[in-house]
């Protein structure tokens, strides 16, 4: 209703403006009011589930004055056969808007109102438009292509390793120490402590930690070392028990396995840390593993572990916590090494093949950084067209969203 009144008013203004131009009195009124936006066009928002419509327009002429006489714009939408409503308020200078609250079943008409202190001006309405849904998001085609490329490299090297091709993998210091660290605990007759971070199974770092646990517990089962694993999530407890149990089965000693090796403490970050600290000072583990997603507790754990003289092997992909582990632990896996660890420890060719595959991703990154930086620098410093084209092409290819 309001919408129609607004249109009616706008028409009146325009008529009054046009008709009254020569007359002195009304000319003043015309000066005070403002021009509406022009060239308002509505198009379907591409590659969505049929929920979006893009609007673009040319701002009111009065918006180009300095200072602008327009204080802002309102976007109005009406469903064909229904009522209209204001769906957005935008600042002066705006020239586009995306309505993402549409329904595929409806047809819409839009108009934009320019707001000023003196009065408002309504644009001509758009043609009726119905949003359409697409089945493939072509905006993400570059993401799909590059992710596919890297994935294909990983799978290719897994396959080629499977067929018996010899692969070189560099030493990862922290992981070479795993056997010795467990052996030390066995000799000293003290337990090893395994902390899989404080996140749940819906964090990929926790999953990485559990896969490493699979390798570590295999050695533990072989050496007959005691393992203690307090966890802060129930699901992690379940997964860890499965994993350790399987290792004991594989080592041929299912009777030595016991559910109490893994125990749930509490979901609360510092409640968990308080309990783990207590376990450390009372049971004095010979070796501590901290692998997974860690937050502030990383240093509390590492310093307490150090005070009881444990060998500490840590690894996380939490950039903020890596420094603490590097500084306070004997060995630290940095970021990517955490994800590579289970493959490295397994020493199976196909697992190692995947490491070579991810190196292809790094190689691509290196090439793009070198070529891109050179193109961007040369292009912008000496205005070389080809270089600029190359630079913007790379930007487009690596843009996400």
């Amino acid at each position, binding site marked *: 209703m309001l919408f129609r009144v607004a249109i009616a008013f706008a028409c009146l203004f325009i008529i009054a403006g046009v008709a009254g131009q020569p007359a002195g009195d009304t000319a003043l009124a015309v000066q005070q009011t403002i021009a509406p936006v022009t060239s308002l066009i509505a198009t379907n928002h591409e590659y969505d589930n*049929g929920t979006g419509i893009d609007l673009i327009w040319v701002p009111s002429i009065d918006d180009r004055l300095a200072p602008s006489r327009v204080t802002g714009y309102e976007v109005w939408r009406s469903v064909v056969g229904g009522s209209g409503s204001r769906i957005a308020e935008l600042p002066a200078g705006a020239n586009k808007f995306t309505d993402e609250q549409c329904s595929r079943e409806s047809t819409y008409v839009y108009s934009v109102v320019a707001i000023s202190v003196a009065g408002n001006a309504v644009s001509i309405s758009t043609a009726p438009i119905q949003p359409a849904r697409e089945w*493939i998001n072509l905006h993400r085609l570059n993401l799909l292509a590059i992710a596919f490329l890297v994935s294909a490299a*990983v799978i290719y090297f897994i396959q080629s390793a499977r067929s018996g091709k010899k692969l070189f993998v560099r030493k990862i210091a922290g992981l070479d120490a795993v056997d010795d660290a467990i052996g030390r605990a066995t000799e000293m007759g003290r337990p090893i402590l395994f902390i899989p971070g404080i996140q749940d199974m819906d964090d990929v770092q926790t999953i990485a930690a559990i896969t490493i646990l699979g390798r570590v517990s295999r050695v533990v089962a072989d050496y007959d070392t005691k393992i203690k694993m307090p966890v802060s999530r*129930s699901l992690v407890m379940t997964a860890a028990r499965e994993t350790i149990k399987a290792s004991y089965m594989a080592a041929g000693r299912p009777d030595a396995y016991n559910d109490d090796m893994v*125990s749930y403490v509490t979901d609360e970050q510092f409640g968990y840390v308080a309990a783990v600290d207590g376990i450390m000072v009372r049971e004095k583990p010979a070796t501590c593993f901290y692998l997974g997603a860690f937050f502030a507790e990383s240093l509390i754990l590492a310093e307490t572990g150090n005070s009881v003289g444990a060998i500490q092997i840590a690894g996380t*992909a939490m*950039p903020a916590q890596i420094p603490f582990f590097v*500084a306070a632990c004997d060995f630290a896996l940095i970021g990517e090494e955490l994800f590579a660890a289970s493959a490295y420890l397994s020493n199976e060719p196909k697992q190692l093949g*995947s490491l070579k595959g991810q190196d292809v991703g790094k190689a691509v990154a290196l090439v793009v950084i070198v070529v891109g930086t050179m193109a961007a620098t040369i292009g912008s410093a000496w205005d070389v067209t080809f270089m600029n084209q190359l630079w913007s092409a790379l930007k487009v290819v690596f843009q996400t969203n």
Partner: protein
Amino acid sequence: MKREVPLFITFFVGTLLIASVFIPPAESWGENFSVYFDIIAVFAFFLGGGNLLRIHLQKVASKRPDWGYSIVTLVAFLVMLAAGLFKLGNPGGISGNLTTAQSWFQILFQNIMSPLGSTMYALLAFFVASASYRAFRAKNRDATILLVAAFIILLGRTPFGTMLTSWIPPQYDLLQVPNLAIWIMSGPNLAGQRAIMIGIGLGIVSMSLRILLGIERTYLGDDR
């Protein structure tokens, strides 16, 4: 069956969610997963909470060392459960807001859990100091770099850093410690962070593929 079905589920669900990113009508699948996960997590807690009860009850029953503390844990756990599940003390009753100031749950949280958590967190201040003393030593080249970077940043975050180098003329103001600290954060630090982030991204791709393809299956208790 015991081995194949979980592997199939992993592969199927993972592939579906990868695809959903590229298919607009499937965009909500990722959201639905987080709802599933939250619901599964509640059920899983019955296992975790049950485990907590069992361990401490066993400790008390067999009078193992420190069994007295297990009683404290059990009482605290059950009191909190009762207070929260029955919304004890809540003026709105069982349908009221859980965190109303008068409810026992909120009182216990405010007066017991919250000071405990803050204090445990505050212990970090002490550990940061002892770790700095121990770790920041010029043992080798790497450790020396670590030490120097840390020292500049520390100095730059205090007014003394400003005073110490304020005599440096404005055209060389980068050498003033606070500016140098900011430059380290946005220059070399940024570079290191980026390398780590790119590495992590690729590491996740590779590990996820190993999991989806069933090469990595230790988490399922399948170790071959």
